[in-house]
């Protein structure tokens, strides 16, 4: 709970004159004039994360040393987080290999990608990491991760309509996981629920590699009319620059504190400030409704959310996007802490803030709508025709730079990449050598294996987590956890809607980052198709170790190449994403973990497929080809603690054919349920579908029962056919060239594998459901 008690006040204070008093007891500011005449003054560029070469480049661009405020801007804008300096040259492949599409209205480089879904609607979606803050302070770190991605979506002109979370932690039974996981889940619950956005799915995974580096990736999706698309551009000389939302405080400015104490003569005492931002979801809810009313009234020329690097990032990107200049009075920024100086104001990551460009004629109406929603709003500057970003502090000029040099001309590195020495040995360590159920007790062992996999934290029922999230608010949630994808209705009249899924598998990616990334893409694509939705577009969150480690850089380049090639083959463009490097402790990097989000379209959500077996008497079909593929599998890990060999083979043409069958079958009403096969294979999928619907099944496997139960071959799905439509469905599969085997029938209160074992749903359910409550209370 925030310690800020917000008591509503009307009218909200808002004005256009500087309101912060000149601080009395600080040393003089470092102005542009002073910088010009003191070229040799030492500046703490290294403590701010800049190299000597980068510092030199700034001086060269400016023709003088930067002021402290300018140094603050360049240090954050040229950081890995904002500039993508290690990844940029690789990410170009997403554009170069983009499949032809006319659905993309905005893409990479914008706050989020925007896709036309027809019937006059567009959707925008993006996934972003908040890994490091969530480890330091799990509750607020995860909460503000939700807040940040929601503002990205809002800045595109859209109403945010749903969120998802892909979460990865250290071992489920590790003491630190009991600190981090409940905090993260509590933070997402607190922020998302208070914001009124349904949480419709995501992932939960555990591995020792994430022990000091949990992955907290948050996705948001929003809906807009294509004509309402907003851009981050400061255009129109004389237009006003308005900062609105929360006041600016000293949160998330660890870097600027370095600057303050090193160059402003601060003594360091009393400057101890939280490096993780604190969220106020109530303010964010007001900001959302306020922005939507401003958009509806057509009062916004350009808009940008304030996320990482706050005012520094918003002003430079708006100015650079508009190809014009901007003059900003930093002393007009409303503060929560009057002692903040210009560099700290520029770098503050206080949450729940937006910056808009508004014509002078519309400014009073803009401020009136902000006042209606009790959102503080302040004019802090205007658009100019100088081509320069200029900022003043109580009449003195502290920033004067060409904005493009900070926003677009950051350093780009071609980091060395080298295939790790151990990669071949890892691939050679085939799981074929591992012991499997055999002999007279084979059936009993297979049964025990299935129960063990269902109870493993990675595969266990996630209700302990998802029950803390509101999935119903707004009344348009058609599918949520535990189904393959979340489905949200966009248009009540026609039933138009979207499906979203995120997937990642660090184990597969460690064995082969190129194939592993394509498998993550294929799984998310398959998950969306399994609900009956047509996959349309991709977002990604690329979580890796340090780019300065050539082995990590090799994993990264392989993953990006795999994703770009995969998206081209599947015909789904990458619309945007996020790179998170430095997820490592000492020399130990996390497994390469690209998390891929796929968005699909339902022409009518009333025809969606769920993964639950709802009725007895439906024929079960296994679609796709099953091979003995257990490298990186859940079985190898849970039963043997083994990770080696090759991940399952990728066949994107088969993936496309399978998706086509699922989508067409849903449209024609041929299927009663569909569930994609992934971690734990057919055995886990069968148990999940039985448990979700409370209806059992009897199956006869068409080959080696161990392989058919636990292999993780890709491009497969389990479906229940609507009685009477078996021939039509078989014909559809044959036409598409998708192998389809009738394996049994739904019914009863047990999962029975003929000739092998039977397990009651109550026993399967207990194994599946009890794990997380036993671990986390």
């Amino acid at each position, binding site marked *: 709970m925030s310690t800020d008690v917000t008591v509503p006040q009307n009218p909200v204070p808002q004005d256009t004159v500087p309101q912060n008093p000149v601080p009395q007891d600080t040393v003089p500011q470092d102005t542009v004039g002073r910088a010009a005449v003191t070229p040799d003054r030492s500046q703490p560029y290294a403590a701010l994360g800049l190299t000597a070469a980068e510092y030199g480049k700034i001086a060269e661009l400016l023709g003088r040393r930067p002021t402290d405020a300018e140094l603050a801007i360049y240090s954050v804008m040229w950081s890995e987080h904002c500039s993508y300096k290690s990844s940029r040259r690789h990410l170009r492949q997403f554009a170069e290999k983009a499949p032809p599409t006319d659905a993309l209205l905005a893409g990479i480089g914008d706050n989020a990608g925007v896709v036309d879904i027809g019937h006059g609607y567009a959707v925008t979606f993006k996934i972003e990491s908040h890994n490091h803050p969530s480890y330091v302070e799990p509750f607020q770190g995860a909460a503000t991760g939700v807040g940040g991605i929601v503002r990205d979506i809002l800045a595109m002109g859209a109403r945010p309509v749903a969120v998802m979370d892909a979460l990865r932690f250290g071992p489920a039974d590790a003491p630190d996981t009991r600190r981090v996981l409940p905090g993260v889940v509590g933070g997402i619950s607190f922020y998302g629920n208070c914001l009124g956005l349904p949480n419709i799915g995501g992932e939960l995974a555990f591995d020792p590699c994430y022990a000091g580096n949990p992955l907290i990736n948050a996705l948001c999706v929003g809906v807009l009319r294509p004509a309402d698309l907003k851009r981050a551009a400061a255009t129109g000389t004389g237009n006003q620059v308005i900062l609105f939302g929360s006041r600016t405080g000293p949160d998330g400015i660890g870097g600027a504190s370095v600057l303050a104490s090193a160059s402003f003569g601060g003594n360091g005492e009393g400057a101890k400030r939280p490096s993780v931002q604190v969220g106020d979801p109530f303010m964010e809810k007001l900001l959302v409704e306020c922005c939507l009313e401003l958009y509806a009234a057509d009062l916004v020329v350009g808009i940008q959310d304030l996320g990482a690097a706050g005012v520094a990032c918003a002003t430079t990107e708006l100015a650079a996007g508009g190809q014009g200049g901007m003059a900003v009075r930093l002393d007009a920024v409303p503060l929560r802490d009057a002692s903040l100086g210009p560099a700290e104001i520029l770098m503050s990551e206080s949450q729940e803030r937006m910056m808009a460009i508004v014509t002078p004629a519309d400014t009073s109406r803009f401020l009136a709508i902000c006042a209606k929603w009790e959102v503080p709003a302040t004019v802090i500057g205007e658009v100019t025709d100088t081509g320069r970003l200029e900022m003043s502090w109580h009449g003195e000029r502290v920033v004067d730079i060409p904005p493009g040099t900070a926003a677009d001309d950051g350093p780009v590195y071609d980091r060395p990449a080298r295939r790790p020495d151990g990669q071949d040995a890892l691939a050679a360590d085939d799981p074929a050598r591992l012991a499997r159920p055999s002999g007279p007790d084979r059936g009993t062992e297979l049964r025990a294996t299935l129960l063990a996999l269902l109870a493993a934290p990675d595969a266990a029922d996630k209700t302990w987590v998802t*029950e*803390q999230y*509101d999935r119903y608010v707004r009344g348009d949630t058609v599918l949520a956890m535990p189904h393959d994808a979340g489905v949200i*209705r966009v248009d009540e009249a026609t039933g138009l809607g979207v499906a979203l899924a995120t997937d990642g598998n660090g184990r597969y990616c460690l064995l082969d980052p190129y194939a592993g990334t394509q498998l993550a893409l294929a799984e998310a694509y398959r998950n969306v198709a399994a609900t009956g939705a047509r996959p349309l577009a991709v977002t990604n969150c690329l979580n890796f170790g340090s780019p300065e480690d050539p082995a990590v850089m090799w994993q990264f380049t392989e993953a990006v190449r795999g994703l770009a090639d995969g998206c081209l083959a599947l015909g789904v463009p990458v619309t945007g994403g996020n790179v998170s490097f430095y997820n490592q402790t000492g020399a130990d990097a996390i497994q390469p973990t690209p998390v891929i989000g796929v968005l699909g379209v339902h022409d009518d959500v009333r025809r969606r497929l769920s993964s639950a077996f709802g009725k007895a008497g439906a024929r079960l079909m296994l679609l796709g080809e099953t091979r003995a593929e257990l490298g990186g599998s859940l079985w190898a890990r849970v039963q043997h603690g083994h990770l080696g060999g090759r991940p399952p083979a990728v066949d994107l043409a088969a993936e496309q054919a399978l998706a086509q069958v699922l989508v067409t079958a849903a449209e024609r009403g041929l299927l009663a349920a569909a569930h994609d096969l992934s971690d734990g294979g057919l055995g886990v999928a069968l148990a999940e579908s039985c448990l979700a619907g409370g209806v059992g099944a009897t199956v006869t496997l068409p080959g080696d029962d161990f392989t058919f139960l636990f292999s993780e071959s890709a491009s497969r799905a389990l479906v229940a056919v609507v009685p009477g439509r078996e021939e039509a469905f078989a014909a559809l599969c044959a036409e598409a060239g998708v192998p389809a085997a009738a394996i049994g029938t739904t019914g009863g209160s047990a999962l029975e594998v003929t000739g092998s074992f039977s397990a009651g749903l109550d026993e399967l359910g207990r194994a599946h459901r009890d794990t997380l409550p036993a671990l986390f209370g």
Partner: protein
Amino acid sequence: MTARVGVVTFPGSLDDHDARRAIRLAGGLPVPLWHADADLRGVDAVVLPGGFSYGDYLRCGAIARFSPVMSELIPAAQAGLPVLGICNGFQVLCEAHLLPGALTRNAGLRFVTRDIQIRVDNARTSWTSQYAVGQELTVVLKSGEGAYVADEATLADLAARGQVLVRYAGGNPNGSVSDIAGVVNEAGNVAGLMPHPEHAIDALTGPSADGLGFFASVLRAVVAA
């Protein structure tokens, strides 16, 4: 004549959109009401929706109860206007002393979203006349401070006067005293529900359509009045 049912939007209201849809599906005309306007716009009934009014930073519903719209609503409710508070709206009605008791943190101290069963205890109120006593409904519970509490004397009064509207059936999800999920005032026009009937109006987007009866009930009550 179509009944007009107001839905109040406080800063931080979240389920106002859903409440308006439920009223529309039940056959009524939803009328948006704004917290800062001391004006009920002549509506026939009012729903206070779920959410986190004013952020609930002081105590759930504690600030909303002092809003301008409440200055009109409180006397109107006392004079017989049908009012339903759902979740945060229930908290507001308790804070305003239109309903007895209070809502506190869930027994498990965590937010809980769950499809649950409730059983109708009183079917003679403005909001439950479409149901039968003992009827079980599947609706949605989603709250962090949903545990109903009241002192012994109040509980005895509630029982004696038939003011328990609905109870949790098949397990108490949040530690509410006597499994109480909703209460009603003595006159039967002001009701509070911790679970959300407006999320159970269509099997496509909710666990059932059982919740529609609350809204259909008030439309009938208004026409009969």
